[in-house]
């Protein structure tokens, strides 16, 4: 570790991993409710479990992004973070807010209070004081990181990362607007969610990947930056108007069906570019970096993001198809693999890379870490396949044949059982990952001797 303040990331990553464990556990509980609907129905209703599952995902990914920024910005800017105290204060606010949301949700405290209670919304449902806390935390973060970059070296990686994080914070402001008109409510909700995951988050993803490629493969910065600009350009070009694919059936004018279909079809391009980027960099790079697990997560990230976000997204983005598949298990299949590939793997990749450096040890735990990659990714892929089959059957029975929703759900039980099984694999994989980065202090297998390159030199690790 070159700069002392990079260590801030350790606290962020630790909280993120705790929430990650909560998130997948909630997912597993929900998977069980799907097959045994009365499970916990009194103490922990399905709607609450789902909120915990999806919101804890968002929060831990955000913590992962913040941690990544605190880790990589000092190295890019070549100076310490402006104020470590502020960084820890920001984390404290976010943790307090998260706890506040969970408690408010579980016990439905302060029902109806405009500041402290729930708002009765489906997704952007944090008590107002938490939303304000999130904004304050975001402002602290932006102030801290932007000042660090402004005072230090400015690189394409930190610029793109900052652009993504500024966009992320500004778009969250739409969460405050809660119009009585449900159509508008949904529209602005997508301005947060879609313009995040299919817009500015892709910039964050590209920047973090670029940093990892730079470190892991030793490729020239100039080459990395060129790719980065192309990825950013195609992501914003397709992603902003691609938001239209969420407007099809919520009450907005019909021309959005065409705008959304056409632009969102091109959203596959930046994900393909990121995959091509990662593999070309590994191909061109000369560095023999000892942290093979970080490379595995990075490459896995781009491949699974391409399939989950790119292919599975395109699968149902055309409005003629979406008319039938909207809100079926096809959506769930896409959502799971897209989030896992694009953002979960990304954060796990940088954690895998940064943790050994921050804790000042060799990357010991490679084999366990890699095993967790295959277990988690295998489980997630199996889940995606079962949900895709479930969604196809559901679309036919419910949307084509017109059978009742719950009758169809009954007939999907076999798929839901298999999904539950794949969920077990994912949870075990997640726990194994956390164990491998947090606990293990020795290598399970002895690594083979380092091989010299063709020209005889051995590239030192960074």
């Amino acid at each position, binding site marked *: 570790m070159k700069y002392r303040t990079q260590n801030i990331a350790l606290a962020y990553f630790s909280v993120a991993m705790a929430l990650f464990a909560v998130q997948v556990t909630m997912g597993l509980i929900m998977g069980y409710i799907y097959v045994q609907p009365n499970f916990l129905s009194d103490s922990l209703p399905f709607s609450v479990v789902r909120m915990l599952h999806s919101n804890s995902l968002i929060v831990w990914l955000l913590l992962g992004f913040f941690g990544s920024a605190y880790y990589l910005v000092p190295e890019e800017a070549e100076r310490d973070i402006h104020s470590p105290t502020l960084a820890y204060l920001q984390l404290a606010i976010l943790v307090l807010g998260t706890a506040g949301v969970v408690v408010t949700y579980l016990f439905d405290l302060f029902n109806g209070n405009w500041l402290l209670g729930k708002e009765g919304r489906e997704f952007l449902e944090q008590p107002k004081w938490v939303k304000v806390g999130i904004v304050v935390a975001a402002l602290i973060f932006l102030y801290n990181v932007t000042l660090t970059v402004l005072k230090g070296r400015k690189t394409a990686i930190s610029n793109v990362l900052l652009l993504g994080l500024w966009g992320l914070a500004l778009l969250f402001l739409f969460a405050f607007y809660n119009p009585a008109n449900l159509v508008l409510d949904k529209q602005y909700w997508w301005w947060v969610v879609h313009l995040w995951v299919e817009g500015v988050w892709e910039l964050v993803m590209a920047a973090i990947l670029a940093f990892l490629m730079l470190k892991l493969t030793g490729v020239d910065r100039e080459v990395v930056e*060129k790719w980065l*600009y*192309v990825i950013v*350009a*195609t992501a914003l*070009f*397709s992603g902003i108007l691609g938001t239209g694919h969420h407007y099809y059936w919520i009450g907005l*004018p*019909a*021309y959005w069906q*065409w*705008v959304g279909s*056409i*632009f969102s*079809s*091109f959203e596959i*391009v930046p994900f393909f570019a990121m995959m091509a980027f990662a593999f070309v960099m590994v191909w061109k790079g000369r560095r023999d970096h000892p942290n093979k697990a970080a490379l595995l997560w990075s490459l896995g990230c781009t491949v699974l993001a391409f399939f989950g976000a790119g292919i599975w997204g395109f699968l149902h983005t055309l409005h003629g198809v979406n008319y039938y598949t909207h809100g079926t298990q096809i959506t769930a299949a896409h959502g799971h693999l897209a989030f896992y590939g694009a953002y979960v793997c990304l954060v796990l990749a940088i954690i895998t890379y940064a943790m050994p450096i921050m804790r000042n040890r060799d990357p010991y735990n490679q084999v366990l870490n890699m095993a967790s990659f295959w277990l988690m990714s295998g489980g997630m892929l199996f889940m995606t396949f079962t949900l895709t089959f479930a969604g196809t059957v559901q679309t036919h029975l419910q949307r084509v044949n017109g059978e009742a929703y719950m009758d169809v759900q009954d007939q999907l039980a076999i798929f839901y059982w298999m999904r539950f099984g794949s969920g077990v694999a994912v949870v075990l994989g997640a726990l194994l990952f956390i164990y491998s980065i947090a606990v293990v202090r020795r290598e399970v297998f002895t690594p083979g001797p380092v091989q010299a390159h063709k020209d005889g030199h051995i590239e030192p690790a960074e």
Partner: protein
Amino acid sequence: MTEATDIRRNPGGLPGELIMWVLIVSELAVFGAALLIFLVLRLGDPQGFADSQAQLHRLSAGINTMVLVSSGFAAALAARAAETGTAGARRAVRRLLAVAILLGGVFLLLKGVEYADAARRGLGLEAHVFFTFYWLLTLFHAAHVLAGMVILSIVSIRANADAVEASAQFWHMVDLVWVILFPVIYLL
């Protein structure tokens, strides 16, 4: 950088800015996809499309085609003049860019008259799927004309060769899209 120096530095490489090419390819892909869908939809309702098309002003659009292509010519001359880099050339560049911008304004003016007429006759976005595409495609294009005029204005301040070349690249893309749009929507 000029095309000549660029190729010397990177033989066989791309002239001009990479990002501008990414943008141009993306724009062509989007407009191309939309026009393709338009043509496919027309197969399902040839009469409705023909009736709708008869409501458009072909003459005005034909004049606009010439206006825009002339404007593109002026921008190309400006890019060439900018490469010489002399003080006298800078004045010529500004003059040529002003012509290009002015012709862009003429295009928007004529297009505005067409829009006003269509709106007056109730031929809005929802009138027919033909008009949905007519409005979406031509409005997207008009937005690019407007953006192009702004870009050309900005680069004419310093009249730097690289910037003028990049703006001319963008302006030719706007040209090209119209030259494809025009026959597909107005004539075929």
